């Protein structure tokens, strides 16, 4: 089902619609078919204007079996279209899904337009006579029948999908032919039968001139790391232990070794962090990626990186916790851990991506800060951002920031080399092994200011604690101010971070369309916060902070700025819908 969704997305992007997707699948690899927990769903919103979320209430639901219908019908808008695979609504599947009677036969779907299509039967008929094709293989092609039908309904270009099928299944002629036949049969079914009263026409969305492609958050983040490597001249070393949903970044990077990208699948999460840190000591761009449970394990190593003051990027693709939690579901509840989750005083910069394609820029920004300030940086993404995709205006390479590693190589200073001396940003020199005359030792024990020698001096420890904190705090001077979108001079500010961006903007847009006044702003830097944050907070009567956690940013804002900001929380493993945020905004106007 995820494959079918991807194909529809591709064709939709190529057609020029704006889009946002929401894949939703179980943690089990091949969860039992027909069961409620085994349902794999793919949601997409696309439009002839720019859109910001995968949509709250789909207009069309394609349900391949009773379980899929049962788990998703609640989302559908009133009067929406339900296309069901009629063949799968048999007694066994109905029972598995917990239906006493078939919803197709009672009046439980009365509020919707229901289309019963025997997709299995039609697919089998369409694939008859393909040499070497088993019945089982023929049945599997039914997802492509559904894709063909929906592609017809929305006038998607067919060539791109047909070409993809031909290439993807080039090695298995009978499967390729079956999928092509099913896809065409689905399209033709829509075209020739009179079952469907409507065919939707969604014109291309107006967009800024340029060349576009669809990109997922995971790929955008990986490409951002590659771009930062190219723009800094530092070879990328990415060490990671397989974990959902961060593994996608490892997969993507491992395909690009021609960029001198070294990927290393480590024996565990701790090793991955240390491998990346060791590579950073050697003058590489060290990065590691994981999700919540892996962050727990990396904490001590991140603390070491704080002490060593070496560049290191730690990517946390957040998922619902605690513990194993909901591994494939969305949540953004690692903010406190990113900010404070280490023993001792161990401050570090935190950057959060806010949209799938923007993961590219967020990755470059994380690297820029890490390299410029010689510090570990935590880059927060989440399951929704990682798995979702959207059209991306491909940037020109020359427009990307240049990152200067500024290695120290000159051993001629008469004072001798001081590994913990500092520049105007409080960053220390980065000297890589192999540099003659600058041999030095660093470690996790407290450093003497300047020399970096082991020091137990009480005053020195306090001074070093302040220097490390001051360095991170000073980054506020080097990041953009918090930008407020407030066309109507509102009293209420909705302030967010991370993947809630789209839902917050969409909700505000709807409120404004009914003459409501609401301001919005979104953090990409969570540590340090932009310099003008206090001023922005002070200029609004009410501040609402919607978060996919129990109120982590709002707690920081209240503690740091003594403002009565209010939180709004959701922890259901799914992103915010814009309607619920719209309601929360309206309540406060």
């Amino acid at each position, binding site marked *: 089902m995820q494959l079918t969704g991807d194909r529809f997305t*591709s064709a939709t*992007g*190529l057609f020029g619609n704006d889009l946002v997707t929401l894949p939703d699948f179980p943690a089990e690899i091949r969860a039992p078919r027909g069961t409620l927990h085994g349902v794999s769903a793919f949601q997409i919103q696309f439009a002839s204007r720019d859109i910001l979320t995968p949509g709250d209430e789909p207009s069309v639901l394609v349900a391949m079996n009773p379980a899929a219908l049962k788990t998703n019908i609640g989302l559908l808008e009133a009067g929406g279209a339900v296309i069901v695979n009629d063949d799968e609504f048999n007694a066994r599947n109905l029972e598995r899904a917990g239906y006493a009677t078939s919803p197709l036969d009672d009046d439980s779907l009365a509020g919707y337009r229901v289309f019963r299509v025997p997709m299995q039967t039609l697919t089998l008929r369409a694939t008859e006579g393909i040499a070497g094709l088993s019945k089982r293989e023929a049945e599997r092609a039914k997802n492509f029948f559904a894709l063909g039908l929906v592609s017809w309904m929305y006038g998607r270009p067919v060539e*791109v999908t047909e070409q993809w099928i031909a290439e993807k299944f080039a090695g298995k002629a009978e499967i390729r032919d079956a999928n092509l036949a099913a896809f065409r049969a689905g399209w033709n079914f829509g075209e020739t039968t009179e079952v469907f009263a409507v065919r939707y026409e969604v014109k291309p969305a107006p*967009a800024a*001139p340029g*060349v*576009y*492609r*669809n990109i997922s958050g995971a790929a955008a983040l990986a*490409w951002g790391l*590659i*771009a930062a490597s190219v723009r800094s001249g530092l*070879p990328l070393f990415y*060490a990671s232990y397989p974990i959902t949903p961060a593994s996608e970044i490892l997969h993507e990077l491992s395909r*690009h*070794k*021609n*960029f*001198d*990208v*070294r990927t*290393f699948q*480590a*024996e*565990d999460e*701790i*090793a991955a962090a*240390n*491998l*990346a*840190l*060791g*590579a950073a*000591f*050697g*003058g*590489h761009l*060290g990065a590691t990626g994981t999700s919540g449970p892996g962050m727990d394990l990396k904490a*001590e*190593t991140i*603390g*070491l990186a704080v002490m*060593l003051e070496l560049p290191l990027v730690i990517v946390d693709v957040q998922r619902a916790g605690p513990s194993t939690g909901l591994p494939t579901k969305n949540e953004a509840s690692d903010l406190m851990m990113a900010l404070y989750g280490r023993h001792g005083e161990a401050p570090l910069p935190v950057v959060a991506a806010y949209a799938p394609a923007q993961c590219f820029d967020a990755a470059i920004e994380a690297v820029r800060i890490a390299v410029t300030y010689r510090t570990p940086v935590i880059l927060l993404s989440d399951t929704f951002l990682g798995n979702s995709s959207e059209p991306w205006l*491909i*940037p020109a*390479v020359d427009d990307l920031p240049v990152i200067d590693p500024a290695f120290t190589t000159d051993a001629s200073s008469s004072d001798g080399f001081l590994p913990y001396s500092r520049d105007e940003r409080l960053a220390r020199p980065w000297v*890589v*092994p*192999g540099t*003659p005359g*600058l*041999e*030095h*030792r*660093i*470690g*996790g*024990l407290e450093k003497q200011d300047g020399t970096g*020698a082991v020091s137990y001096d009480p005053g020195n420890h306090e001074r070093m604690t302040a220097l490390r904190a001051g360095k991170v705090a000073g980054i506020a001077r080097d990041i953009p101010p918090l930008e407020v979108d407030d066309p109507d001079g509102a009293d209420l500010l909705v302030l967010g971070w991370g993947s809630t961006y789209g839902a917050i903007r969409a909700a505000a847009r709807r409120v404004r369309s009914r003459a409501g006044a609401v301001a919005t702003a979104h953090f990409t830097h969570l540590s340090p916060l932009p310099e003008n944050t206090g001023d922005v907070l002070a200029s609004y009567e009410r501040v609402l902070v919607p978060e996919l956690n129990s109120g982590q940013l709002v707690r920081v804002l209240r503690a740091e700025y003594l403002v009565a900001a209010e939180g709004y929380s959701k922890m259901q493993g799914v992103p915010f819908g814009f309607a619920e945020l719209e309601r929360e905004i309206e309540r406060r106007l």
Partner: protein
Amino acid sequence: MAVAAKDRKAWASGEEPRWCPGCGDYAILAAIESFLPELGVPREKFVFVSGIGCSGRFVYYVNTYGVHAIHGRALALASGLAVARPDLSVWVVTGDGDSLSIGGNHLIHALRRNVPVKVLLFNNQIYGLTKGQYSPTSEEGKITKSTPFGALDHPFNPLALALGAEASFVARTLDVDRAHLTGVLRAAAAHRGTAFVEIYQNCNVFNDGAFDTLTDKQTRALNQIRLEHDRPIRFGPEGERGVVQRGDGSMEIVNVADVGEDALVVHDAHHHDPSLAFALAHLSERPTGPTPIGVFRSVERQVYGQALDDQLAVARARLGVGDLASLLGSGHTWAVA
């Protein structure tokens, strides 16, 4: 190659060692400082990486590049460095608690991957820095602060563990025997891939005399079984004792006069099959009787760092040297005018 004293001095960082007086670590430090210059590798190309424990302080005293990392993770950090920078000579200094307990996972995985790192395991069979708890190499029943009724743990045999983890180079030596220690380090330095060297190191405060049998003037000739490649394994003041292999593959110590020299096992460190080395590792479970020292195993196989570099070259040949603009513009794209 003889090394002048003034050159040796350049390899000391000048930081004053803070180990307890009489600690075996001093002897190892002195041996390494005088041995490194003879390798002919510039000082700036060496990196020492250590974990936590008394051995961890080692890096501060050698005038090379160094990282004093966190407990158990030195080998993981060193692996990243060595794989990223194959031009460097990377050495890990670790202890029995650091590498066999908290860092055990990294040790076995570094060994199987064969990363280009030399691992010096200072084995004193005790936790010294935390003031005397039993370690994973302490004997069963050991009375310590944390085991007043005796330790229940069965100890690791570090060499057998390393061999089980597919190590390509495995050796054992003694802190106080400068010549033997230097010889083993020389062989380790010449090895491509991971070299695992267990150094019996006396902790004179918490576990004094653990290796006396092997180091005391009176007993050492009777108990050091010095392994030499391609030579019959025999020992004792007159070479009167030797090692034979039983029918089941295990090893046994015999009087040479009883079996004849031809019956002795001839050491083969380069055999592709680790069985002989494994049997030798089990010849003595504790260093309290005749114990083999020297190079148990030294074989060549794929080295991880080199293999990764080769793969990068293959990727460049197959995909072309990476071009960012081409990557960003790859796949299905569309233009908006």
